C-alpha cells in the first residue's frame, strides 16, 4: 500500500470516530422516546420532529437560546470595541510596561473560572447586575478580551507602518484613518477575533450559569430541566444539544484557515 493512501485511510478513520458520537446525538433527536428506550436502532424507524417542536414552541426552552445569543453578542461587541485600539497600540508603539501588560493579560487565560466563581457572584450581586445578560458578557471578557487583543495584534502587525504615515500626510485625522482605512485592511482579522469571542462565550457554562437564575439563563442551564419526574426526556435533550452545535458549524467555514491562530492566542 502506498504512503499517501494509508494516510488517507487513517484520516478518514479518525474523522469517522470523531463524528460517531455526534451522529448518535442527531439520530436520537429524530426518535420518539419510546423508540429510544425500546432498543438500539441505527436510524430513526419512526421519524419525528416532535422533539424540535417542543423546543420551538415552549418559550421557557427557546428563551434559553435567545439569552445565550444576547450575552454572546454583547460580549462580542464589548470585546471588539476595547480590543481594537489596544491591539493597535501593542502593534505600533513601545510604551512603559507594554510587555508586562501583555503577559498579565495572558495570565488571565490561566485562571480557572472556578476560582472567580464566588467573587464574581458577589461582585455582580452587589452592583445589582445579577441575572442580567450584561453580567455574563462582562464576566466572559475575562478570557475573551486578552484573546482578541492577541489575535488582532498579529493581524495588525502584518500591515506596514507606511500606510499610517501616508494617511497622516494626506491629512487624515487618526480616528478617520483608523475607521476608514485601517479597519477595512484587517477585516479578516476582525472576523477571526469576533468568531473566537463568539465561540468561547458560547461554549462556557460555569460562569454563565452561576451569574444567572431566571431572566438571563443560558440554554446549557435549561437543558438540565429535561430530567423530570418520569425520568430523562432523552429525545428533547438530544434535539436541544443538536441545536447548540449548529451556530458554530455554520460560521466555522469562514475562519477555517485561521482556527489554529485563534486557539494559539495569535501565536502561530
Amino acid at each position, binding site marked *: 500500500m502506498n504512503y499517501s493512501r494509508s494516510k488517507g485511510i487513517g484520516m478518514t478513520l479518525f474523522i469517522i470516530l470523531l463524528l460517531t458520537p455526534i451522529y448518535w446525538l442527531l439520530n436520537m433527536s429524530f426518535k420518539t422516546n419510546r423508540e429510544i428506550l425500546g432498543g438500539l436502532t441505527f436510524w430513526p424507524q419512526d421519524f419525528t420532529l416532535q422533539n424540535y417542536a417542543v423546543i420551538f414552541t415552549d418559550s421557557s426552552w427557546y428563551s434559553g437560546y435567545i439569552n445565550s445569543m444576547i450575552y454572546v453578542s454583547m460580549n462580542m461587541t464589548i470585546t471588539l470595541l476595547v480590543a481594537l485600539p489596544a491591539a493597535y497600540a501593542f502593534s505600533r508603539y*513601545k*510604551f512603559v510596561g507594554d510587555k508586562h501588560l501583555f503577559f498579565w493579560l495572558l495570565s488571565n487565560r490561566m485562571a*480557572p473560572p472556578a*476560582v*472567580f*466563581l464566588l467573587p464574581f457572584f458577589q461582585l455582580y450581586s452587589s452592583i445589582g447586575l445579577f441575572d442580567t445578560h450584561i453580567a455574563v458578557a462582562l464576566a466572559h471578557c475575562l478570557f475573551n478580551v486578552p484573546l482578541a487583543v492577541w489575535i488582532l495584534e498579529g493581524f495588525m502587525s502584518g500591515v506596514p507602518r507606511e500606510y499610517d504615515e501616508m494617511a497622516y500626510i494626506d491629512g487624515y485625522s487618526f480616528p478617520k484613518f483608523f475607521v476608514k482605512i485601517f479597519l477595512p485592511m484587517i477585516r479578516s482579522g476582525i472576523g477571526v477575533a469576533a468568531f473566537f469571542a463568539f465561540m468561547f462565550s458560547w*461554549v462556557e457554562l460555569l460562569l454563565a450559569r452561576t451569574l444567572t437564575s431566571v431572566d438571563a439563563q443560558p440554554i446549557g442551564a435549561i*437543558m438540565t430541566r429535561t430530567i423530570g419526574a418520569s425520568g430523562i426526556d432523552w429525545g428533547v435533550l438530544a434535539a436541544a*444539544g443538536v441545536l447548540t452545535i449548529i451556530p458554530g458549524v455554520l460560521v466555522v467555514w469562514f475562519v477555517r484557515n485561521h482556527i489554529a491562530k485563534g486557539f494559539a492566542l495569535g501565536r502561530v
Partner: protein
Amino acid sequence: MNKVPNNRAWWLVLPVFILVAFSALIPLMTVVNYSVQDIFGPGQGYWVGTEWFKEILGNERLQDSLLRQFAFSGAVLAIQIPLGISVALMMPKSGIKASLCLILLAIPLLIPWNVVGTIWQIFGRGDIGLFGWGLNSLGVDYNYTGDTVDAWLTVLLMDVWHWTPLVALLCYSGLRAIPEAFYQAAEIDRASRWAVFRYIQLPRLKSVLVIAVLLRFMDSFMIYTEPFVLTGGGPGSSTTFLSQTLTTMAIGQFDIGRAAAFSLIYFLVVLLVSWLFFTAITHLDKEK
C-alpha cells in the same frame, strides 16, 4: 516591525486595562481578602491569618483531588499530543479535502461543554448509547456510572475526543509553515521518512507544540463542566477534579474562607506548572 516609543499609547490600552482589571483584579483581591478571614455573614469576619492555608494543605479530600487532577492532566497530554501530531501528519496538504478536514476537526471544539458531557452521557450508556451497547455486546463489562475505572476511561476518552483536534489543528498550521525546499533537500539526501519527521518536521513544530502543551495542560487542569455532566464526579469521588471540589466548597457548602485559600493555591499551581513547562521547553531550545 520597528515600534515607535510613545507613552500616549496607554490611552488606547486603557479600556482593556480597566475592563480586565474590573473582571480579574477585583475578584482576585476579594479572594485574597477572604482567604485570611473567617466569614460568618456580610461584614462579619475575623482575621485568621494563614490558618485556612494550613488546613487546606493538610486536607485529605483536596490532596486526593489534586492527585487525581495531575493524573488526569498527565494522561491527557500523553495521549493527545502524539495523537494530534499523527493526525496533523495524515491531513491532506491543500485543496477542498484539506478545508473539509479542518472544518470536521473543528466541530468538537465548537460544541458547548455541557453538551459535550451530554453527548458522551448518552453515547456511553449501555441501554441507549452506541458505545456502551457496542462494548457490552462484545462481551466487555462496561458501565461508566457504576465502575470507577470505566468512569475514568470514559472521561479521558471524552477529553481526547473533544480536544485532540485542537492539537492537530495547531500542528497542521505548523507543518504548513515549512518551506517545500526543505522536503526537496531531504529527498535529494534520500532521507528516510522517520529522518524527515525527526530532523525537519519536529524541530519546526516546536513552537506550536509549546502552545499545544500549555493550552492542554491549563484547560485540562480547569476541567469542570464535561465530567460534571457526564459522571457528576462519581462513582464516589473518583472523577471529582479540582474545579468541582472547589465549586462544591464555595457554592454548595458556602465555606468561603477555605474555598478562597483553596482558590489561591489552585491558581498558583496552574501558574507554576505552566511556567515550569515553558522554561523547561525553552531551556531545551537553548541547549541545542
